[in-house]
């Protein structure tokens, strides 16, 4: 297991390096410069500022410099936010984003699993059809559209919850709901399919032949085995969620990382773009790693195959 973890760690570093390289050059292809909206500055002043930030050098040189700083753990300073270090900007903004993402994935997974399980148990009954309709709607409606609906009906019309901003738990409910619908949809759909397959498998028949009740069979035998494939989609889903937060934070005026990220792209704030991208990538790779470990916890066949090494 130690060797496996080390191996994964090396892969993580390589992946991050590739992402850093790609992002850097792609970012440089973006039109405009960090100073494009500063009409008051004279060309001389602009040249001076560019020189100060090292932006006058050729792109490959800038790249080498960036990598060198990155190795030292230095993500640079923002062009827009009063020269504050990027690491500080990220750590200031991560709170709301992490809370939103976490709430959405926990809520979405729990509700999705319940919907999927109920749909499978009540296969071809109204519960199944309802769950399927919810899953299809959830998968096809983008989170920002749903976010808008929630704002209009629940916040503006019914006045149950605040429309936007970030001043306590009440403010997190609507954006969490908007974000989690996609999670609910895909988990429910997957769980239903898996559960149906598991319920028709031989070992379920063996369990029933032992005299175990229907509820016992589902709880002890069916759910765990259905979870195995469902866990695999948790990784890609985290990605979806992250990209989802970018828009949702903007929509609900949440002072999170995504909102800052979108702004930094609009303003060509290179260090913030780079820093945030790398941060998201690292999180994602970590999420995939955790999913891998979880997989082994649920499925003994995988656990033991890894353990032999």
């Amino acid at each position, binding site marked *: 297991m130690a060797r496996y973890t080390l191996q994964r760690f090396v892969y993580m570093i390589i992946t991050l390096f590739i992402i850093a390289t790609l992002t850097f050059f792609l970012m440089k292809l973006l039109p405009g410069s960090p100073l494009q909206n500063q009409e008051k500055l004279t060309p001389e002043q602009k040249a001076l500022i560019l020189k100060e930030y090292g932006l006058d050098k050729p792109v490959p040189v800038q790249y080498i410099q960036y990598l060198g700083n990155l190795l030292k753990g230095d993500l640079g300073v923002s062009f827009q936010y009063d020269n504050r270090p990027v690491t500080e900007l990220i750590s200031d903004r991560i709170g709301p984003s992490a809370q939103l993402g976490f709430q959405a994935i926990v809520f979405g997974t729990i509700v999705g699993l319940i919907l999927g399980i109920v749909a499978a148990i009540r296969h071809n009954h109204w519960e199944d059809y309802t769950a399927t309709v919810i899953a299809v709607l959830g998968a096809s409606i983008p989170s920002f559209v749903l976010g808008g609906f929630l704002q209009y009906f629940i916040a503006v019309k019914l006045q149950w919850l605040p429309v936007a901003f970030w001043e306590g738990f009440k403010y997190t409910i609507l954006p969490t709901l908007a974000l989690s619908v996609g999670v609910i949809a895909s988990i429910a759909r997957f769980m239903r399919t898996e559960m149906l397959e598991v319920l028709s498998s*031989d070992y379920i028949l*063996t369990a029933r032949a032992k005299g175990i009740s229907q509820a016992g069979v589902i709880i002890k035998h069916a759910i765990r085995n259905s979870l195995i494939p469902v866990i695999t989609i948790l990784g890609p889903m985290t990605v979806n969620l992250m990209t989802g937060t970018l828009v949702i934070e903007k929509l609900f005026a949440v002072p999170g990382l995504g909102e800052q990220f979108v702004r930094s792209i609009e303003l060509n704030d290179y260090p913030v773009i780079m820093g945030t991208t790398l941060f998201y990538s690292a999180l994602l790779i970590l999420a995939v790693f955790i999913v891998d470990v979880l997989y082994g916890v649920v499925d003994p066949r995988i656990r033991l195959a890894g353990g032999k090494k």
Partner: protein
Amino acid sequence: MEKILQVNDLHISFDIHAGEVQAVRGVTFDLYKGETLAIVGESGSGKSVTSKALMRLLPTPPSRIKQGEILFEGKDLTKLSEKEMQSIRGAKISMIFQDPMTSLNPTMTIGKQIMEAILKHQKLSKDEARKRAIELLQLVGIKNAELRMKQYPHQFSGGMRQRVVIAIALACNPKILIADEPTTALDVTIQAQILELMKDIQKKLGMSIIFITHDLGVVANMADRVAVMYAGKIVEIGTVDEIFYNPKHPYTWGLLASMPSLDHKDTELYSIPGSPPDLLNPPKGDAFAPRNPYALKIDYELEPPMFQVSDTHYAATWLLHEMAPKVEPPAVVRERMERFADIVARKGGKPRG
């Protein structure tokens, strides 16, 4: 002998889009204490459906027991509630299935899977249940039982898994063990070991076995009595010797003729021509008639009743009617019958039964 189970005129249908599939169309048999009854027939003859129905393990819908009764310990199993059935399943009637590779839960240790059955039906503590599970593993011939308890199914070979499945079935000393093609998925040497094990355990525990198979070799080895099923009905039932040495139904003849043997002279193995009828629209008269070279005119009009051949031997064919023409079984079956008799004579034994 004491009857432990009576199945009377059992009808089971599956309701599908196209209509009603009459999978089992009036099956009647008794099971005696301590005996092994083999149910043989080709795929789709209703043998598996019958066996699952005894445990009420068929999904409803689409299946339903249309009529008939299954009498066990004075109760009609067809009328019991799901809850009452749960106290019988695994405790009084157990079942083992065809494919040991898929009939164990891959994410649960073997020990837990055996203990689950024990804890469900017996008032034992976890420790006592664990001890009992280890005993069971030893009974079915698994070495290092204590270590094996903690392992998962994928750490066992196919034959070993089937032993575990048998251990689970035996957990509560059932009165009846239903084995649905328990050796079909195993290779021949392992097959022999598992059959030996089952015979051995039956001798020790004295339970009755219903053995579902399409392998006549296994039947000859295991069974005391044989029921031959075709198109959802039992067409012939008798002791194993009566069925092998004195078969009366043309379908049984066909089955025996298509059984390979070591001194097989012909290059091509005999097979019964045609295929079983569609049970969505069962034919009028005898369902086997279209494939039966000895079919009489009446076979297409009227279903034959069970004719009694001996106290234990019955067959449903019009050929046994007193007005029917005398028909000799096909040469290959006659030859086989003589050869069987010869083998028995050489051994100096009497046919069993």
